[in-house]
């Protein structure tokens, strides 16, 4: 059973599409890094997984259960760190942990959890209003660990942490994975994702531009591809057919002159290249084509550039 599985997951606010037809799969016991520039739709995707936000279209299953049904029961088995939520300033760190432990029906020790994220025994008894940004984030991480969850969903867990905190976070993520938990975390920093992830996905403008095994992506075998295809004629049918191929993220007519119309097609995986070419051929004649493989860095940096014009 997958820890997370989404199918065409989509969120629109009015006419604006924030998340577009995302297919994600996170297996039990793996660390999945969800990478993308700020504003790409990462938090909205996570909000849908945690049923804070209702999908416009598509489905999401977390630990085998549809997020739209019985979301409260799933939460017994998930540790959650949502996007920058406020803590209760008047409550101590210990009271937060106690409340979470009671709510989860878990038998945990608040002090042991605090110790694990490096919160000192004196600090954990003080009201959270007196905490620094980094201490608050450490407490949020500890709260996500309550009850030994089967899945951790962490939205930008490194935000507000100092370098020592980030190192500690990495250790915790790996410890949790070794315990058998799946970890799904988002970040806008490529290095942080590269360091701990087994698999990653890159989200740009609400679309999953690239996803797969980190080693494969780095070595280029599973890399994204940009296809340039020159044909004799471009019809609407060709475009629709190509767009319906699974790993196609984008398909556009780049040169529509009648002599040599050409298509630019972005693929999230190299494997789909042949299928795309076959699809085009069934509609029109291919005059010429070229394929360019793109590295993790190039896709990510392109995305960042696109997001901040």
């Amino acid at each position: 059973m997958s820890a997370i599985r989404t199918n065409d997951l989509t969120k629109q606010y009015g006419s604006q599409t924030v998340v577009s037809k995302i297919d994600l799969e996170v297996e039990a016991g793996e660390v999945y890094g969800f990478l993308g520039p700020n504003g790409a739709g990462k938090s909205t995707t996570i909000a849908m997984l945690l049923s804070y936000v209702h999908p416009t279209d598509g489905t999401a299953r977390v630990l085998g259960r549809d997020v739209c049904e019985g979301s409260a029961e799933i939460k017994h088995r998930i540790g959650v760190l949502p996007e920058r939520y406020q803590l209760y300033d008047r409550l101590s760190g210990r009271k937060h942990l106690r409340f979470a432990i009671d709510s989860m029906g878990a038998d945990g020790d608040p002090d042991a959890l605090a110790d694990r994220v490096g919160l000192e025994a004196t600090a954990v008894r003080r009201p959270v209003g007196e905490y620094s940004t980094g201490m608050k984030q450490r407490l949020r991480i500890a709260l996500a660990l309550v009850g030994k969850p089967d899945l951790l969903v962490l939205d930008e867990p490194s935000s507000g942490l100092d370098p020592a905190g980030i190192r500690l976070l990495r250790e915790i993520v790996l410890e949790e994975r070794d315990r058998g938990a799946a970890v799904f975390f988002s970040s806008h920093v490529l290095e942080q994702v590269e360091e701990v992830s087994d698999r990653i996905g890159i989200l740009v403008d609400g679309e999953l531009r690239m996803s797969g095994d980190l080693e494969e992506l780095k070595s280029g075998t599973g890399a994204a591809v940009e296809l340039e295809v020159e044909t004799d004629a471009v019809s609407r049918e060709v475009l629709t057919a190509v767009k319906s191929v699974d790993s196609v993220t984008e398909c556009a007519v780049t040169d529509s002159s009648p002599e040599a119309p050409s298509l630019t097609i972005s693929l999230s995986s190299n494997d789909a290249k042949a299928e795309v070419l076959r699809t085009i051929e069934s509609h029109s004649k291919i005059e010429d084509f070229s394929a360019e493989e793109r590295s993790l860095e190039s896709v990510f940096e392109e995305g960042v550039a696109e997001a901040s014009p």
Partner: protein
Amino acid sequence: MTVVDIARKDVADAIRSRALWVATAIFLGFIVLTQGIVLAVVEDPDPELAARFLEGPATEVVLPILGLLVGYQAIVGERETGNMKFLLGLPHSRLDVLLGKFVGRTAVLAAAVLGGFLAAIAMIAVTVGLPPLIPIAAYVLFVVLSTAAIVSIAVGISAVAETRTRAISVAIGGYLLATVLWSYVVDGLYYAVNRNLPGADPPTWIAVVDHLNPLTAMSTSADVLLPEASQIAITATEEGVSATQTEQTPSGTTEALVHEPLFLTAVLLFWITLPLAVGYLRFRDADLS
């Protein structure tokens, strides 16, 4: 029981933030002040008369305001700060959160109300003698029920509203409708049907409409349950104002449907249920971003 977890946490928050103490102090202050004036101004007051003044500004004006203040932020406040994501990240459903907040805040305000009544009753007992306790207990029960209805309305508003500002605006609007504007609404409706204004003894249907207002229902419960007060004659002389009790009692339509405790209970239960139900349906479908 996750509703209990949320409610308990809410009560603990109210104690820590001193909201409980402030609410108690305000309600107690008003009810004790009213009692003090009655006991000081009326010549030879008896315990029955003093008990009649357990209903007054504290229940009619202060309690609805406190209820709205205690409740209007319950859901929308936690949505705006993002605390809601913490609560819902734990195994609490949205229904649990809504009900937990309602129970917690009703408990806080009910504690303030009970504190105020106990103080006022003690005051009567010490100065003029023990008032009739059973009718008073029944009345206090009605006030607690009304407290729950007012908190339910406030929590319902806070579950529907998208921002705190909008929640407080709707709450103020509702308060004005229920306190200042309601008689015009009722008279207007009567006029629309009969082309004249209701007299001293209005027909049952218009009295029922009038009592759909939970504050009217609460105030009528005082008329029905508390000992009937003798009329008070107030005389202003050069030495000041004095008031004396006369023997004559006012006549009322005690037989009417709206004077049935069961009817009044039904109205208040309706106002406990409806706002929570509407609030839940809207909150259930809301996106928390």
